[in-house]
């Protein structure tokens, strides 16, 4: 259960959401943020904080963006993220983000 960052964040990365998160579970990729689905406590604070409206609740995410739910889970597993996000980027992204054209 978790909130999910979607492609409206790609190349924005202003980290407004990170400021809000009480449990530091929003990790920065090279071009997009990723919320750790096992660490997010569903408090909902990041969603209204996002100026790009990039964040959705997993349970209310539009169908066309639902791929990002799986992508976040795959990304944190592949990068072995956990235990609290650092201030710096992980340096890579999920392939679904790599496919996006630069803004």
């Amino acid at each position: 259960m978790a909130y999910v960052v979607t492609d409206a964040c790609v190349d924005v990365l202003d980290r407004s959401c990170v400021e809000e998160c009480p449990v530091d579970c929003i990790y920065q990729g090279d071009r997009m943020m990723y919320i750790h689905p096992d660490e997010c406590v569903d408090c909902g604070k990041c969603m209204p904080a996002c100026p790009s409206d990039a964040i959705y609740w997993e349970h209310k995410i539009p169908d066309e963006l639902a791929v990002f739910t799986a992508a976040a889970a795959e990304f944190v597993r592949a990068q072995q993220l956990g235990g609290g996000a650092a201030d710096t980027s992980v340096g890579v992204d999920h392939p679904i983000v790599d496919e996006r054209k630069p803004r």
Partner: protein
Amino acid sequence: MTAVADSPVTPAERSTVRAACPQDCPDTCAMLVTVAEGKAVEVKGDPDHPFTNGGLCVKVNNYLDKVYDPGRVLFPLRRTGPKGSGRFERITWDAALDEIAARFTAIAEEHGPEAIMPVSYLGTQGILNGLNVGDPFFAKLGATVAERTYCDSGACTAYAMTIGDTAGVDPESLVHSRFILVWACNIMSTNLHLWPYIAEARRGGAKVVVVDPVRTRTAAAADQHIALRPGTDGALALAMANVIITEGLTDDDYIANHTVGYDAFVERVAQYTPEWAEIETGVPADTIRTLAREYAGAQPSVIRIGVAIERHAGGGQTVRALACLPGLVGAWRKPGGGILQLPLWAFPVNWGAFMHPEMLTPGKRVVNQFQLGEALTGGLALDPPITALMVYNSNPVVVCPDQDTLIEGLKRDDLFTVVSEQFMTDTAEYADIVLPATTQLEQDDIMFSWGHLYVTYNHRAIDPIGEAVPNTELFRRLAARMGYTEPVFRRTDQEMIAEAFDWSHPHMAGITVESLKERGWQRLNVAPPESYAPHAEGNFPTASGKAEFVASAAAGGNFVLPLFRQGSNDHQPGQPVDPLPHYIPPRESVHTDPELAARYPLNLLTPKAHAYLNSSFGNLTFHRQVQKEPNVLIHPDDAAARGIGDGDPVRIFNDRGEFTVLAKIDDAVLPGVVVSSLGGWRKHSKASATLAAVTPTAFADLGNAPTFSDTLVEVEIA
């Protein structure tokens, strides 16, 4: 922010109303409700509130789902089918009140008024509509006094015996703590807004240790997780005291000046060595030593206990032992040091104006609600037997133990049951009359908190939906129909709000009804978090004014705070209490009852769910989707030994009953421990039973706390 409305806004206006979460949760979040054309369109956390900080939680973010759920009970209903059939017809309020008044009057005449019993708790915890809302009515009626000890009653008795009813540590002061010991409390699911303070302390170098039989989200996020056998927390706490004393880690000056009974305590804990505790708890002796050294050495250190800790045979003495530790190491000296249990005690709530204990008939009998099933079925010798129940603010079928017996009792044809509810709960289905209750958006209230130091005001945001009424109005109507004319039964909500606090108390300086209405919330007039250290120089609200290792209040025997029993001090449990902290092992364990453990080898724990608050929200589609199908966590070894695969339906049973959920194989639990969260409703369950079917009605040692976590079961494929 636009204008704050005192009462519903005129249609077409769009306004923001200041409100407060009504749930029985320590965080008491300040909410902002947006209302457009008479309809609430958004509920969110108040970003200006220091503790709430703009966030609510998974339970309440979707509060509108609850308010506007099509399943709301909106009109009075009368049963038309057999009890439990769920068949009802709509009736008028007049008809409902006539019938209730006539039945209550007839029962009181025929059997005596104690044949009637209220059943309620904290389904809403506002001062007006919460714990004590029905107390004057039932006192006047002469009904059986309901003892309501679901939560913290045992811890309160223990805590009061040791350090008095003090607020302890300001949760906001935790940023100054150097060592944070979270004991059996899953903060990330049940006290979410405290976590940022802990996280900040940690960024400043504090160590966070979680003691819990389960690797909860909170335990996983901590620096260290100490997993111990369920119900052995007291052994760990006493062994910590043993190490602190043996190794000379005490604050001798604090002990000499601000505690009593130290020598006797030293003698008592000498037997509780880390090696002894290792056998009892499963925690290695060296881990216990290190924990004690770090706890004593990193000052200020703080212990955060939740409500789970009291829920086994020795829960009370466990809290006594834990409440002794800060005095031992002088943790109280600085802000952020001590023990955090219930900041509630800082609020000068005018409980008397709501309970009206002077209206009770002296000597009136008291029945504890955990024994409701037995009370209804002859298991308790009651003369006269219970013939009528009035249930509000509670769904006992889900939250009371011994579910099967309770259902049997509720089915009695000669029992007259009234349930006031927002939804057709598992309990309401057995009612003769169901009355429609409002949600928080439809009522005014004023809130204390048991997790921070802010008073919060809840403005009614919208008109009541259908014919729902607040609990205050329910009892005004019932009292009028019964012909009660005392002024207490005619108070308006605004008159009650004016009586909610002792406004002349120093903690209320600068706080008025008007200022609260305007601002929504205000911090009590106490020292700010950076200097809040009420016991730096002792000053404990105990008989001696000191922290009492030897509790003078134990002399009168075991007791339940009158707050949890309608203000009554009659028929207290009263059994002798050893004034020194000591270890009481769990009742249902392989050590205490090997024969029982041979048949039922697994310890069942039943913590609060992430998406439900007790049984509240357990019916809502969205919350059920988040919480997922009820399950039981079982260790891979225990699952393998029973041929259980992940996702298999399993039957969990003991001599009291059984329930069926899906297995989730997870090494977050210790071998021998299984975990199933509370709150799913019986009507949605597999095999018509929830975990309340297997939990015991037996009390813990102090304060008649429940022993929900002192439960042995076996699990097998269903």
